[in-house]
């Protein structure tokens, strides 16, 4: 498991990767930020820090669900159709489509005979701005189904899956590799900072122009109280609320 957290006003950050027993990775990421001289700890070193800090740890099998065991089995069978039923991916699901994509190449990242996007589970994240305009972002994930051991995605990478500064806070989800190369979270903020775009304009631009073949989505808030989200795939599980009474929970467009 991996996670990261960032505090907008002073751009302090904390991140962790490779956790196996820490019940709440995001809280360990925060402790890295607050109680260590570093910004990012991983694997055995992170687990050791967790114990030093006395955070709650559990057996590794606490995290494992039957559903995921089943999906891993499917994922390992080459060319088997696998999708996350909770966010149906229409055309990309069929064997024919997968075969066509594989033949076509088309720049699609493939893993075990299927487009990478099929393996993207729901990373979670949250972005907040308070009544004083202070932003923060947090992201947490188990990564890609059937990923190579030791694989690190975008969620713990400041500027990719998570970012916060004076202007905004951003948290991303989707194909980690696409989000990493696109430095998605930082790009939203950089467009606001260097090009003067509004939050929504920056989000739209990044989703449209920075993702190529990759599938991803993000949520964002600005220091002036705006909230925005964008995604280039079928759906993104999300919720948002603001102090004027606005409240929304959605999946698709």
């Amino acid at each position: 498991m991996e996670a990261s957290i960032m505090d907008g006003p002073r751009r302090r950050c904390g991140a962790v990767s490779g956790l196996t027993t820490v019940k709440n990775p995001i809280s360990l990421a925060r402790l890295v930020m607050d109680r260590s001289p570093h910004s990012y700890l991983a694997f055995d070193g992170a687990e050791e820090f967790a114990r030093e800090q006395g955070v709650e740890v559990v057996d590794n099998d606490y995290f494992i669900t039957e559903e995921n065991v089943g999906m891993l089995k499917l994922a390992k069978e080459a060319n088997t159709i696998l999708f996350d039923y909770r966010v149906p991916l229409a055309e990309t699901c069929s064997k024919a489509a997968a075969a066509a994509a594989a033949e076509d190449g088309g720049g699609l990242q493939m893993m075990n005979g299927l487009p990478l996007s099929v393996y993207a589970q729901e990373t979670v994240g949250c972005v907040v701005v308070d009544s004083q305009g202070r932003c923060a972002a947090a992201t947490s994930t188990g990564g890609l189904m059937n990923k190579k051991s030791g694989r690190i995605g975008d969620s713990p990478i400041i500027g990719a899956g998570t970012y916060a500064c004076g202007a905004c806070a951003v948290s991303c989800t989707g194909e980690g590799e696409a989000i990493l190369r696109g430095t998605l979270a930082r790009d939203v903020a950089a467009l606001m900072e260097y090009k003067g775009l509004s939050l929504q304009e920056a989000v739209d631009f990044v989703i449209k122009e920075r993702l190529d073949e990759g599938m991803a989505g993000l949520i964002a808030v600005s220091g002036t109280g705006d909230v925005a989200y964008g995604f280039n795939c079928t759906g993104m599980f999300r919720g948002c609320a603001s102090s004027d009474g606005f409240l929304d929970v959605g999946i698709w467009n």
Partner: protein
Amino acid sequence: MGWAIALHGGAGDIPLSLPPERREPREAGLRHCLDIGVAALKAGRPILDVVELVVRELENWPYFNAGRGSVLTTDGTVEMEACIMDGATMDCGAVSGLTTVVNPISLARVVMEKTPHIYLGFEGAEAFAKEQGLETADPSHFITPENVERLKQAKEAKAVQVDYTEPSNAEIENGGPLMESSGGTVGCVAADGLGGLAAATSTGGLVNKMAGRIGDTPVIGAGTYANSFCAVSATGIGEAIIRGTVARDVAAVMEFRGLSLKEAAAFVVERGPKRTTGLVAVSADGEVAMPYNTIGMFRACATQDGYSEVSIWN
């Protein structure tokens, strides 16, 4: 226009009084690696090959904090990390937590080219290296007496130290205990003058770092970045470079504000906390920038018009 190459061997509070026996081997290393890079560019090698082979040489040179000669963690071990990025395609590869891989930058490249992933760390990365048949060595191969001594000094000062400097009591932005700017990370950026751009960075991290600590080097957009505008490799205090998304910002400022490479690079470095950041960068049209806000930065560069430089201070 034309090709350009720049490389660094770390930014830090390199004292002007650095004794010759510590200065000369590093200058010689920079000169040697610059020559190799220039020869590869002139021979028309692909731009990724150029930065990889220069960084391999820097990793093999024991006086820099990368590969052999890496600084030690608080446990007395070596944990190496590296990253490579191709500006034209924006493909990238990164590795962390390596203990036996002789050339971390080459493993980063193999991750990029042979897996559907970008970043592998620790045991998974080591296992992958063995699968791929990369050269490995006993962990003791990477440890030098100089670094054993540095760790000893750092522990005595209860500091997280950087190369080149004595531990001091500067506080970092994170509000944590003292940190000096880290020297010794190595990096190389190159442009072939035909639109090809690449960046590569490699390091052992911070002296006396916690086991498992990851710095800016393998974080895309922090220590390493390349796109169609420029290629950037940073060095300094990893924690500051991460929060400052330094490498990405150089390119972003060029793209979104229309600044030249030199202006963008200077802007980003000056904006960061003092004594934390240095970088080398090249643009698609062969411009070079090597700004730093530390006392010095081991660096070298060359451009197609015949200019070349090896320096430490201003």
